[in-house]
């Protein structure tokens, strides 16, 4: 089961990149935490999501203000 920002999700995806596509995430400025690891976008395509286990995903916007 996938949990996205604490909500159960029915989405299925083989990789994080596929999930990002399903969610129509913007191409810039988004960060993703998978099971407590912050994963650079460059790693999303090679990061598989298993259906055999729960995955906790958090998606949020990176900001630059100070």
């Amino acid at each position: 089961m996938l949990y996205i920002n604490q909500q159960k999700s029915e989405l299925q995806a083989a990789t994080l990149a596929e999930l990002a596509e399903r969610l129509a995430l913007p191409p810039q400025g988004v960060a993703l935490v998978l099971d407590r690891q912050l994963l650079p976008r460059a790693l999303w395509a090679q990061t598989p999501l298993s259906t055999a286990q729960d995955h906790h995903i958090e998606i949020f916007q990176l900001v630059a203000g100070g």
Partner: protein
Amino acid sequence: MNLSDSEFIRYSRSLMLGEDGLERQLRLKQARVLVLGLGGLGCPVASTLVSAGVGALTLIDGDVIELSNLPRQSLYQTSDVGKPKAEVAAARLRQQNPHSQLQVLKSRPDEQQLREAAADCDVLVDCSDNLPTRLQLNRLARESGKPMFAGAVSGTSAQLYLLNRHSPCYQCLVDPDWQVLQNCRSMGVDPALVTLTAQQLAWLLLQYLQASPDQIAQAIPFGQANPVPFGQANSVPFGHYGRFAASEHHIGFHWYPLQANPNCACCGAVQQGAV
């Protein structure tokens, strides 16, 4: 090096914190910290570091004070509008603690100026308000091997990065081709959240600056296979990203290890070389 009588009195409440209080205070006195950006994050960070007894700061900001800065940029007053931030900040900080040596850059530094400023400092603190400056300081941190403590706040989001030469870098996460990230001009900002974030950053900086070389060496190891000594005294969890969140059981920063991008144009080669 020792403390003067007046410094002993000034720092007496910090000196009471543990048996090595004096050594810790002397480490602060010997430290030089670069603070890039003297806005909502930079004001409280610089103020806490100077008040606590950090011996020297390099303060960099090319902006002038605007009326819309005043709700959160605590070193400035209404009558300061229009004046250079770095100059006014330094004047206020000197009143807070005359023992700190302050070096001031009140124009936007070019690459070489920033490189030289970074080379003189023990730690680089990114309190800037835009992506190109953040990436520039990140590059210089890598180049110089200096640790970088970065904060970023916009809207109701607050983020912290604790990076050193052993950890992934900011550019692993943020692509230089990205045109912009959201900032306070585009999103607004919660004044108390900026101050809280700045003080979290300042607390971590003071932990790091007061730690002995042994304590720092113990705190450094971080990697996928190496559990982080998170929460130990003096440990700064380098390689971690912190994000402010309020949930049912916790209000504060949640910390996540940042994974390296092996193809990162800034640190990728270094990372591969180190393996």
